[in-house]
């Protein structure tokens, strides 16, 4: 939007004051004659307030002269009040279509002597923006957002709504080198390219997301450390796999040996089983019986641990419930009280039932009562029915049964040993025993190897998991590093561009100010603004912080304000106050450089000034009584 033109500023209820500034028709400047205390400064500061602070942040941010914050309601009135500021303006869009806007801020509240420092309570502030006579209406913070985006009032309200206070502030900033940073910050803000700033913020957001994803500070060092870790793990995997292969080979060899031994044993056993010799047949029979007894014995013992819950069972449920009942009855254990009630009584120091405050005696009594009240879970424990499975272990029987099996086994052993065998049969038995021992040893060895194989497999799985995790992390690190490097490059390009733009913009601003100064004060005068030295007025080519006197420096402030504003109109409070002889030139300059000039003049400022701004009669604004 451009070609902004203010048509009306209406103030109603501000500190009990009402006035309306109705500007001349579009294309014409307007001069208002406003004597002391008729609202000149107020108008400027209300405009800055409306344009500079969004609705949700407006309360307590209004400034008036030296009061910061300042009150807006009438401090002589009681009860509910309203302060309403209406600003009407028009602007052209990109297709040169004119649109009409009415921005209204309504603050409601009341004067209150007990709420320092403002002594007022603002109950609500509401912003409304009517576009094109109500075709579209925005409310709340959306008003500020729209106006800021379309007209950038928020960026320069302090300069296009200009007054003596602001001029003095600029003069002070420009006259002392200690203030250079503040002045530069103002200019840098003006010269910051919004689009570049937006890109930079986006890149920063992207960087944060990448870093968040990587969960670590990306660096070559991190990458190197991870790579070393990964190489170590890959080495461990190779070692473990070699060991695993070795174990697998050993198991294969052992199994082969075992199958041979088992085959030998089977042959030997067949020889023993098919032998026609009576002694051998008898011995074989006892051995079978002995084996059965040993297996039964082992099963019996296993069952003892398998059914370990039977160990705990006991037929004492009735007895224990009887004990619990006796404790409860003989102990006259109180029924559960409301423990929370007691705790609340003690905490609040008053009876929660009757509401009376607790005296010392009552408090002591309640404390004793508290000791008598079991916590809920204790109450449940004491009053619940105890259950336990009846005894089922019968350890004595089990013991006797096993004892019999052991005795049977021993007896069979005696019988076996009592049988005399021929030398050849004894050899067969000895050979079988030898084979049994070898088979048992091999079984143990294979079991050990299988355990080792299981351990190695688990270790390899674990190592592979870790390696995969590290590999993924490294990939992410690499990938993220590439992205981050690109972000860094792009940020640097943007920052370089910003610096160039800033430098160029500073130069342009310097030229604009200088041209302004020359046009007002004459060609002997110029101005220079640099990032190194700040703002200086020059006379005959010599620059300094004290050149030009008060009048010259006031002009310099005007020109600085003009350079800082991004909108066409300028609304000035007491424009020619102390300007002196260059006032005609200042008037001509303002007319030439702004599409709309609105002056809020003292009656003493009109000569050689107002008529240059506008050929129309100035509009007198009288002090509207409260």
């Amino acid at each position, binding site marked *: 939007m451009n070609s902004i033109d203010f048509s009306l500023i209406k103030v109603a209820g501000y500190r009990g004051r009402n006035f309306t500034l109705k500007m001349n028709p579009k294309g014409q400047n307007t001069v208002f004659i406003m004597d002391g205390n008729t609202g000149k400064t107020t108008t400027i500061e209300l405009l800055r307030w409306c344009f500079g602070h969004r609705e949700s942040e407006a309360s307590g941010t209004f400034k008036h002269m030296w009061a910061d914050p300042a009150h807006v309601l009438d401090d002589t009135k009681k009860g509910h009040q309203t302060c309403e500021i209406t600003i009407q303006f028009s602007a052209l869009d990109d297709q040169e279509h004119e649109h009409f806007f009415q921005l209204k801020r309504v603050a409601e509240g009341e004067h209150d002597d007990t709420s320092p420092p403002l002594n007022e309570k603002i109950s609500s502030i509401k912003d409304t923006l009517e576009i094109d006579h109500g075709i579209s209406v925005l409310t709340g913070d959306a008003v500020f957002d729209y106006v800021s985006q379309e007209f950038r009032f928020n960026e320069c309200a302090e300069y296009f709504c200009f007054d003596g206070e602001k001029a003095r502030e600029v003069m002070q900033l420009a006259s002392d080198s200690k203030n250079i940073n503040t002045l530069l910050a103002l200019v840098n803000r003006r010269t910051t390219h919004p689009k570049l700033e937006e890109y930079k913020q986006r890149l920063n957001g992207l960087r944060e997301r990448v870093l968040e994803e990587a969960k670590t500070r990306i660096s070559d060092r991190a990458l190197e450390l991870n790579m070393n870790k990964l190489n170590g793990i890959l080495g461990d995997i190779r070692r473990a796999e070699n060991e695993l292969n070795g174990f697998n080979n050993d198991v294969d060899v052992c199994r082969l040996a075992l199958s041979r031994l088992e085959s030998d044993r089977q042959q030997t056993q067949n020889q023993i089983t098919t032998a026609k010799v009576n002694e051998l047949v008898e011995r074989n029979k006892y051995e079978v019986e002995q084996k059965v*007894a*040993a297996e039964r*014995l*082992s099963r*019996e*013992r*296993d*069952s*003892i*641990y*398998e059914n*370990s*819950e039977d*160990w*705990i069972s*006991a*037929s*004492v449920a*009735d*007895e*224990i419930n*009887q*004990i*619990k009942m*006796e*404790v409860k009855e*003989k*102990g*006259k*254990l109180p029924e559960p009280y409301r423990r929370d009630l007691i705790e609340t009584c003690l905490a609040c120091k008053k009876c929660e039932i009757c509401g009376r405050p607790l005296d010392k005696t009552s408090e002591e009594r309640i404390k*004793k009562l508290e*000791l*008598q009240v*079991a*916590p809920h*879970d*204790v109450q449940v*424990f*004491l009053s619940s029915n*105890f259950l*336990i499975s*009846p*005894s089922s*272990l*019968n*350890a*004595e029987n*089990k*013991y006797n049964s*096993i*004892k019999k*099996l*052991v005795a049977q*086994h*021993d007896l069979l052993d005696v019988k076996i040993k009592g049988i005399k065998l021929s030398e050849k049969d004894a050899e067969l038995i000895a050979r079988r025993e030898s084979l049994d021992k070898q088979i048992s040893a091999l079984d143990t060895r294979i*079991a050990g190897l*299988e*355990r080792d194989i*299981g351990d190695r497999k688990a270790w390899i799985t674990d190592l592979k998991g870790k390696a995969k995790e590290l590999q993924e992390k490294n990939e992410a690190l690499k990938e993220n590093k590439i992205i981050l490097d690109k972000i860094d490059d792009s940020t640097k390009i943007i920052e370089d561009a910003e610096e160039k733009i800033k430098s160029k913009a500073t130069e342009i601003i310097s030229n604009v100010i200088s041209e302004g100064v020359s046009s007002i004060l004459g060609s002997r005068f110029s101005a220079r603004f640099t990032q190194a030295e700040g703002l200086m007025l020059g006379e005959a080519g010599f620059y300094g912080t004290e050149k030009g006197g008060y009048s010259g420096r006031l002009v310099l402030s005007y020109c600085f304000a003009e350079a800082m504003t991004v909108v066409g109109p300028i609304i000035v409070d007491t424009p020619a106050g102390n300007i002196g002889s260059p006032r005609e030139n200042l008037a001509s300059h303002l007319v030439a450089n702004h599409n709309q000039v609105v002056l809020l003049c003292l009656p003493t400022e009109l000569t050689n000034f107002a008529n240059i701004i506008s050929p129309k009669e100035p509009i007198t604004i009288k002090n509207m009584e409260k």
Partner: protein
Amino acid sequence: MTKIKGTIQVTEQLYDILNMISEQKKNREPNGHLARFARLIDPVIIAAFFGLYKSQELPPLEEEEEIKLNNSYEFNVDISDFTDIFNHFLFCLWVKENGLPDKSEDMMKYRERLYHFVSKLLDDKYFLGVILPFYLRKADESEGESTSSFLHRLANSDDIGIVLQDYSPEFLAKEFSLMQSEFISNVIAPLGGGEENARKKQGTPNVNRKPRNT
């Protein structure tokens, strides 16, 4: 509900037992007896009960810190059934030590102590940190010069051959049962309807042992 989720303190012997079981359970066909315990927590439970039966002592009630044993073992198991029975046995032992309330001179003090004791039993942190290790330690105390501790013998019961030993499963079960009967006879039966009645129900012979000095 009492759930162990984390480590509990265990004695050296119990630690060996748990490792043996854990190791054997990895094999498809375990050859030792200990691996027959249905759950890893079962020997811990058996040992705690044995410690209670053998000592017939109440746990330290004012112990502020956890009892530290030589080792710790990690579990994640619900043991509510066990703690309920164990707590009731401890409750009976407390009543035996403190008498029934009608014998108490100061009823208020009696209630106060009773509530405090039961609260302690029901405090899971205290149960797992103090009560359980207290009785596990009791189960690992040797019984005289000639007999090693219950837990030591349990650890040796894994593979004992075809012989009767004082560390074979059947002997340990029998000893456990005798200790249980003794506890019932000394603690529960006199309070809850007579020793003979309880013993009959339990189906165990009258063990002629000297009552322990508790």
